[in-house]
């Protein structure tokens, strides 16, 4: 295995799922031209990614969709029957020049009418402009509200993804279900840890107290030797957090799980107060 020696190799999966940022994607593609191993890996992973859609729960589209599709296709194949849209613009102006009737009075009347019209148009324009401002404001408000809603929807969507993925863990044959109790700094805190050697750790905590910005909660595997960090935990405003952690093969079978308060970014070995520990 030369995998570890090629720093590009690590990006193959993200490349296949279109998850690289554009600059990195270009660099990776350039690398593919000169690395057969990466190319072979990408091809094999493409086969995997192309199979992913087949795992999606199948849902019947509405029967009407078939007709819609066929109608839309029929529409596109038609030879262009679109009206040239600048025909309006090229039409000569309807307005006749005023001097077509050279009578003096007529001129004055026309001028007066012009003023009336101009004033009228001016007022109308001002009114329109106010209404436009108003409409624009309302539109901005609506867009903002929509964006808020969509952001909430996105957050919910990601949560759904986590939950959906978590369900698989909960059915793992080697699942251990651990309960954690709050300690002195947080007597009301509670947590459950779902642990599977093959599928990882799902950790759900409630009632964790708010902490300063320069601190973080850190989750630990308690082992016969030194505790091993599982990762960091960032509760929401209500003190709840649900996080999935890796359960590396190198971690010995844990005897329990604990959560401590540590400096921001986490530490290699626990230093702070223990907030939660398995019962």
């Amino acid at each position, binding site marked *: 295995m030369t995998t570890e020696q090629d720093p590009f190799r690590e990006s193959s999966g993200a490349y296949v799922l279109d998850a690289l940022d554009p600059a990195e994607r270009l660099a990776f593609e350039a690398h593919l031209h000169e690395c057969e191993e990466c190319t072979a890996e990408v091809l094999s992973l493409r086969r*995997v990614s*192309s199979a992913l859609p087949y795992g999606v729960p199948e849902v019947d589209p*509405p029967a009407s969709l*078939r007709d819609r*599709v066929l109608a839309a296709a029929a529409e596109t194949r038609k030879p262009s029957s679109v009206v040239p849209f600048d025909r309006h613009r090229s039409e000569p102006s309807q307005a006749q020049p005023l001097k077509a009737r050279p009578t003096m009075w007529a001129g004055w009347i026309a001028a007066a009418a012009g003023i009336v019209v101009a004033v009228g148009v001016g007022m109308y324009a001002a009114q329109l402009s106010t209404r436009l401002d108003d409409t624009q404001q309302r539109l901005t408000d609506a867009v903002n509200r929509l964006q808020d809603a969509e952001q909430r929807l996105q957050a919910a969507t990601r949560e759904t993804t986590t939950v959906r993925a978590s369900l698989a863990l909960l059915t793992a044959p080697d699942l251990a279900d651990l309960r954690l109790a709050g300690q002195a700094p947080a007597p009301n805190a509670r947590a459950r840890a779902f642990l599977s050697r093959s599928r990882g750790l799902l950790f759900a905590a409630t009632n964790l107290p708010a902490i300063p910005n320069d601190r973080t909660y850190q989750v630990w595997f308690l082992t016969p030797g030194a505790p091993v960090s599982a990762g960091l935990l960032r509760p929401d405003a209500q003190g709840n957090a649900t996080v999935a952690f890796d359960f590396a093969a190198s971690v010995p079978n844990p005897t329990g799980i604990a959560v401590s308060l540590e400096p921001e970014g986490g530490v290699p070995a626990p230093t702070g107060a223990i907030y939660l520990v398995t019962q």
Partner: protein
Amino acid sequence: MMWILLAVASSARTTADDQAALERMARGDQAGLAEMYDRHGRLVYSLALRIVRDRGDAEDVTQDVFVQAWRQASRFDTTRGNVAAWLLTMARSRAIDLIRRRRVRPQPGADDMVMETKDASPAPDVQFEWVQRAEVIQEAMGALPLVQRLAIELAFFEGLTQAEIAEQLEVPLGTVKTRIRQGLLKLRDRLAGAGATS
């Protein structure tokens, strides 16, 4: 393992059927499109729905995919990939464009940047799907470590970049790369293991 043989056989036949349908589409014969829709419409719609999570949007995506296939039928090279993979690639790409557009705050001129629509070129050089059985894929996904599965799902179905996933899961970028790759490699081995017996 009989069913795997069946799955492989039926997917090979589907490809031949698809090719015939595609040729009819290329000649402007709507019956070819209808046939194509009847065979793949459900899967295209299901994938779109999984990504956009809105029936109306999923219908729009499905319509766009088949209209595009109709327009480009004559240019699709069946020796380079299978039709179903092509349709699904288009569906995913359009669905993700749609949710990314939802996600990004509209800014003047920003549209062109985020909207960089992926080329709908015939993708994966997959001659046939060696596994098209939902339960096989679902089972393989289910057996993945949770963190790997999450990273893959966020990239594939939510259209997040690795940087966004890192932010979302609060782990370093390198960890996200590794999780995606390790997860896909595991899926590959599992699926190949299933297919290898045929």
